[in-house]
């Protein structure tokens, strides 16, 4: 087959621009302070097919080049065309994918190619992009430039420096085929080896299993009954096959089995003298409280056991939500890792019950500071590059899937350089009942049902994702663990699956994420107690994958779906209509066995019970000793006006608008409160509100809370603050506080004491404290956790080079909102509106944003002190209910939660959103310390504004709750803050806007 090269470049001329080149030029300026006169781009296609180049050339303008805006060339490089590129560039960089890496433009081009050449036969297309730089300083090394433009894990780059350009020695990426894999017959793994060798076997095979787990597997194969059954099944009796060992490693991975949350913990508190045993944090502190609450309400339909938690929203519809992290892949390839994160969690929703429709996304990221100037450990990207890549991956994944991103956050801390956190959440909706009468949140498989793999194919990509994320990041982390999502393949699959659901075809569905088919079919087989898989039937991206690779590959965009045998023709026809690949690969049985074959050979024969419940419980040690930190002592004199402008520019506080605006937050035509609010639509939104049923104002609130800074003092306080923030944000939108549900997503550093982790006991004690607080606060708020996830190995390197993230809980919340026509937003509405503080300010400046800022600038010695406490959560709940109902009744239209930066920042943000000023008096709002009242981050507080004519009603409505008159909004664009007779802050609203918006606008502007 011949290879035809087609290149396309934007036309030059009045009004025409090379926008791709412009983007690179502006990013070089924004990120590296490098000016370049011009960057031009060329997109290349390498077409391998039976179609002659002449025939392709004749149709270039029908497919590859848009004749209005682009010029194309066939089988020669555009750079060599003096017509198109008359000037000699300073240098050229061309970037293509490595063979075998998902190339979405190439896939799309191939689809278009077949439209034009229906007889193309087996063809394939790969793509590349070339940048020509003009007027670039000689000091910029072209290889360095290439490195900023590609990721060598997944891409390859060729360059031409100025000399090469002068000699017209242009770099040309050629078509490369991925070398075929060789199919290896399943190996028998000898487990009759000494303990050291068992450990060696686990480590060298990336199994991530500990000695006890390896011994448990060893013991299984010594069991005479097991051996007899295996002999009868025709598989090696006394040793696992590689398929079985890989399957156990995936299923028993920390990622899939949450072994730390399930462990038995011996906990000591050196301060109180407490000694306790906790038999599974998850069961004790998360599951039990939720199950207790489930007895008291009728709307908790499905908790914990499915791919997401489901609550009844009204008589016709239920809603569900799930959040996950994709940290390790995002560290290695920020774009691909984050994209697979978002499209992966979308599939969790699609795989809930009999299939839910994803209708909203949330994205919360934790990164190192984007302006970091310190050293970077080997193999880690600069935080600004991680931010750009992760953001782009999530943007493309969400936008192309047609799911609005309605809520999120970006948090910065030096330690996230070691491991960025990429939380992706999705909300789904499904009819309570299907047309055939089944309740859609309940899966109904029976033995004999046919199991299909639907969507993408299986490839070498994504092997060992689950076990890899259960290890710390090292310089040798494998590239096969990284993949790029393909949102369009997935979108087609979602369209098809939802039709299949409504036709009543689906009896069981789950997604293929971590662990691939091994996990998806393995988990579903628990329903019927058995399955039989034929791996030879699984469609592959490239031939030659071995059995174990097919079973555990985490290739994206796949669902596993069970249907009745008699429904196969209808299901197949639906798949054909949607151009979605759907292949029967397994059958449910009731044999009690996870039975895997390759054609007629049995390659795995594992009892379902052993597979799912065989992993031994970890026994862990936990010891709490409060960290001793230098206290935060505020300076005796300070210019609070200056401090306010500096605080507004702190990355943790500053506007993320330029980033967030690049997410589609309004597709589906349901978003009633958008991420940014106010007259200029650029003030901070507290929570997302959607009205998903068209024509009906019944709403759903989606919010989140995250406060990792407090972990430096007490991870318990961190957890309480995160939950309270999520609830407060939802209250600002007028949520029904009696119908809220939460998701707990823990990201922790390794908490198992070992040579690598000498402080494991302390880190585990942090986890214990966080979960105890989670239980206490959730019980008090009657806030069930319906789903959650944990990521427990967020460290980079070992020894002195080790970087551990601060223990981080993301708490996401979704709740009922009775009527989106009655909500509140943070922007001040009218001069004369009365401002009130709801709640009290305490002396709780420990680990506050102001403390961190003043410590970093050398003004304060430390950040130690009391972090925000949640002493009386029941009381808070009653206040929240009062405020929320005031909003639902239209009494309050302006409310903002007080969090980072306290009252000072909150009021400033309200002025920014309204583009008007305010005059505020902090006297009487709490503790005597002005710093506590102005900058403190005490929980349970809001600032609200009410129209003067409704002020009496508001005061009466809130009677019995702590509210304090603060002042009023004023026409003049100035924020004035007083403390009794003392003048504290004068800030111009426009100056505040500038500080708040300038800090994280890394776009390089728009010309």
């Amino acid at each position, binding site marked *: 087959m011949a290879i035809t090269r087609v290149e396309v470049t934007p036309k030059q001329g009045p009004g025409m621009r090379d926008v791709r080149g412009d983007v690179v030029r502006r990013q070089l300026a924004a990120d590296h302070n490098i000016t370049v006169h011009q960057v031009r781009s060329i997109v290349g296609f390498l077409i391998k097919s039976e179609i002659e180049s002449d025939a392709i050339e004749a149709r270039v303008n029908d497919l590859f080049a*848009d004749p209005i805006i682009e010029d194309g060339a066939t089988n020669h490089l555009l750079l060599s065309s003096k017509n198109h590129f008359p000037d000699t560039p300073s240098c050229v960089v061309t970037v293509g994918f490595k063979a075998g890496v998902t190339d979405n433009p190439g896939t799309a081009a191939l689809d278009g190619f077949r439209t034009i050449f229906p007889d193309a036969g087996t063809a394939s297309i790969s793509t590349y992009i070339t940048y020509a730089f003009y007027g670039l300083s000689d000091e910029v090394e072209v290889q360095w430039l290439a490195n900023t433009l590609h990721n060598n894990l997944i891409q390859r780059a060729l360059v031409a420096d100025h000399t090469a350009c002068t000699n017209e020695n242009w770099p040309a990426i050629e078509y490369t085929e991925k070398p075929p894999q060789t199919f290896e017959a399943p190996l028998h793994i000898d487990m009759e080896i000494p303990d050291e060798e068992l450990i060696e076997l686990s480590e060298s095979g990336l199994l991530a299993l500990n000695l006890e787990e390896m011994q448990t597997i060893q013991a299984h194969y010594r069991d005479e009954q097991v051996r007899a059954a295996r002999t009868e099944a025709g598989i090696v009796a006394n040793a696992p096959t590689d398929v079985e060992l890989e399957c156990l490693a995936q299923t028993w991975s920390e990622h899939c089995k949450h072994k730390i949350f399930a462990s038995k913990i011996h906990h000591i508190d050196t301060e109180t003298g407490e000694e306790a045993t906790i038999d599974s944090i998850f069961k004790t502190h998360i599951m039990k409280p939720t199950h207790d609450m489930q007895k008291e309400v009728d709307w908790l339909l499905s908790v914990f056991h499915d791919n997401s938690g489901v609550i009844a929203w009204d008589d016709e519809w239920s809603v569900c939500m799930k959040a996950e992290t994709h940290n390790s892949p995002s560290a290695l390839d920020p774009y691909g890792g984050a994209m697979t994160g978002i499209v992966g969690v979308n599939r969790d929703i699609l795989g809930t019950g009999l299939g839910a429709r994803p209708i909203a996304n949330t994205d919360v990221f934790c990164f190192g500071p984007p302006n970091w100037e310190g050293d970077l450990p080997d193999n880690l990207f600069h935080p600004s590059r991680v931010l750009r890549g992760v953001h782009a991956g999530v943007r493309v994944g969400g*936008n192309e899937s047609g799911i609005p991103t309605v809520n999120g956050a970006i948090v910065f801390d030096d330690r996230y350089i070691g491991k960025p956190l990429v939380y992706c959440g999705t909300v789904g909706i499904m009819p309570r009942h299907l047309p055939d009468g089944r309740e859609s949140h309940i899966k109904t498989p029976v033995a004999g049902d046919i199991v299909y793999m639907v969507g993408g194919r299986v490839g070498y990509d994504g092997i060992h994702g689950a076990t890899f994320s259960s290890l710390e990041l090292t310089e040798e982390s494998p590239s096969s663990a990284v993949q790029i999502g393909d949102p369009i393949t997935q979108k087609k699959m979602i*369209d098809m699956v939802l039709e299949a659901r409504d036709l009543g075809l689906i009896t069981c569905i789950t997604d293929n994420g971590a662990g691939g088919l091994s996990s998806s079919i393995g988990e579903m087989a628990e329903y019927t107690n058995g399955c039989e898989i034929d791996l030879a039937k699984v469609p592959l991206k490239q031939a030659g994958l071995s059995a174990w690779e097919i079973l555990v590959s985490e290739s994206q965009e796949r669902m596993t779906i069970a249907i009745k045998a008699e429904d196969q023709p209808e299901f197949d026809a639906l798949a054909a209509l949607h151009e979605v690949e759907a292949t029967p690969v397994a059958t449910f049985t009731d044999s009690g066995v996870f039975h895997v074959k390759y054609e007629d050979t049995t390659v795995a024969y594992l009892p379902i019970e052993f597979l799912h419940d065989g992993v031994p419980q970890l026994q862990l040690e936990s010891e709490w000793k409060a960290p001793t930190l230098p206290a935060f002592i505020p300076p005796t004199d300070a210019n609070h006006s200056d401090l306010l402008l500096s605080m507004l520019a702190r990355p943790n506080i500053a506007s993320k608008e330029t980033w967030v605006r690049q997410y589609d937050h309004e*597709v589906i035509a349901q978003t009633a409160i958008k991420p940014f*609010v106010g007259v200029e*639509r650029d003030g901070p939104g507290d929570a997302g509100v959607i009205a998903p049923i068209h*024509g009906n104002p019944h709403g759903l609130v989606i919010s989140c809370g995250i406060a990792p800074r407090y972990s430096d003092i007490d991870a318990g306080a961190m957890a309480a603050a995160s939950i309270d923030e999520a609830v407060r944000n939802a209250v600002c939108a007028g949520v029904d506080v009696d119908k809220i549900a939460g998701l707990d997503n823990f990201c922790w550093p390794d908490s198992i004491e070992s040579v690598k982790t000498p402080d494991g006991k302390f880190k585990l004690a942090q986890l214990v404290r966080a979960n105890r607080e989670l239980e206490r606060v959730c019980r008090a708020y009657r806030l069930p956790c319906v789903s959650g996830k944990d990521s427990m190995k967020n460290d980079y390197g070992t020894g002195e080079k080790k970087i551990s993230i601060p223990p981080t809980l993301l708490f996401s919340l979704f709740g009922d909102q009775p009527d989106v026509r009655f909500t*509140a937003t943070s922007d001040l509405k009218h001069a004369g509106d009365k401002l009130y503080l709801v709640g009290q300010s305490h002396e709780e400046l420990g680990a506050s944003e102001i403390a961190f800022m003043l410590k970093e600038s050398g003004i304060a010695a430390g950040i130690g002190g009391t972090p925000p406490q949640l002493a009386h959560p029941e009381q808070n709940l009653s206040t929240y209910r009062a405020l929320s109902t005031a909003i639902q009744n239209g009494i309050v239209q302006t409310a903002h939660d007080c969090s980072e930066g306290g009252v000072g920042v909150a009021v400033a943000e309200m002025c920014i959103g309204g583009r008007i000023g305010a005059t505020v008096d902090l006297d009487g709002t709490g503790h005597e310390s002005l710093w506590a009242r102005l900058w403190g981050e005490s929980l349970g507080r809001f600032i609200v504004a009410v129209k003067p004519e409704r002020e009496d009603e508001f005061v009466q409505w809130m009677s019995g709750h702590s509210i304090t008159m603060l002042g009023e909004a004023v026409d003049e664009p100035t924020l004035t803050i007083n403390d009794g007779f003392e003048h504290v802050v004068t800030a111009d609203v426009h100056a505040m806007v500038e500080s708040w918006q300038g800090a994280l606008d890394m*776009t390089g502007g*728009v010309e």
Partner: protein
Amino acid sequence: MPSPKVAVLFGFGINCDHETAAVFDLVGGNAERVHVNHFISGQRTLEEFQILAVPGGFSFGDHLGSGRLMGNRMRFALRDQLHAFVAAGKPIIGICNGFQVLVKTGLLPGPNGPLPDFEQRASLTLNDSGRYEDRWVTLEFDPESPCIWTKGMTRMDCPVRHGEGKFVMPSTTDFDALDADHQLTVRYVDPTTTPGEGITDAPLPFPLSPNGSMRNIAGVCDSTGLVFGLMPHPEAVYAKWLHPDHTRNTAPGPQHSDTLGEWEGEGLQMFRNAVEYAKANL
């Protein structure tokens, strides 16, 4: 007159199909989401329908240029059905990615005559900003446009959500010709101008014009006024509660409608216009 049947295309990455169907239903249409392949395979035909909507989304991921690959499927596989649909005087709307599709099939702006020739005359290319953005803009309509979709509409607020919305044509004479026929139906305008006086040819700065579109074009119609496409999303402002100013009690729109009472948003009228047109003429 029974409710006009509206075909709302979906599949291959179209993603605004649900809401686009919903807004036609709200104004008395009878909308059905139909997979593109149903028409291509001949299982269904466009002839069954009185109105065709190509919704927004990311058909084929916008690879090789937004709307290109879907446009090709329609241009090559649905050519005859589309030709007959237009010849029968039935309205077509393309929104966002749907507009891009109609431009790349050649249905918009189309030839200077009533029947389509499937020649591409314009394009929608990457925003000058280089960014996909979701933001609200203000639109103004040419009151003399033959477009049946925008009858009686003067100005509205609307979200744009695209990365490739810059409308371009090869020469200024192309624009002059369309302008003379009032086919430059809808433009981005500065909201501080007086309604009815906002339209200007001189490029507005970002973000008043979100993409650097030539002559601030947000949407165009064909010479019959029946085929119409625009980058902004009128379906996304079918209700006032979707307007960013609703929490400030200043969301614009009709005082009262039979559809949503005092909460009807400005975008719904566009769909009502087509449904009323179909009722009266088809």
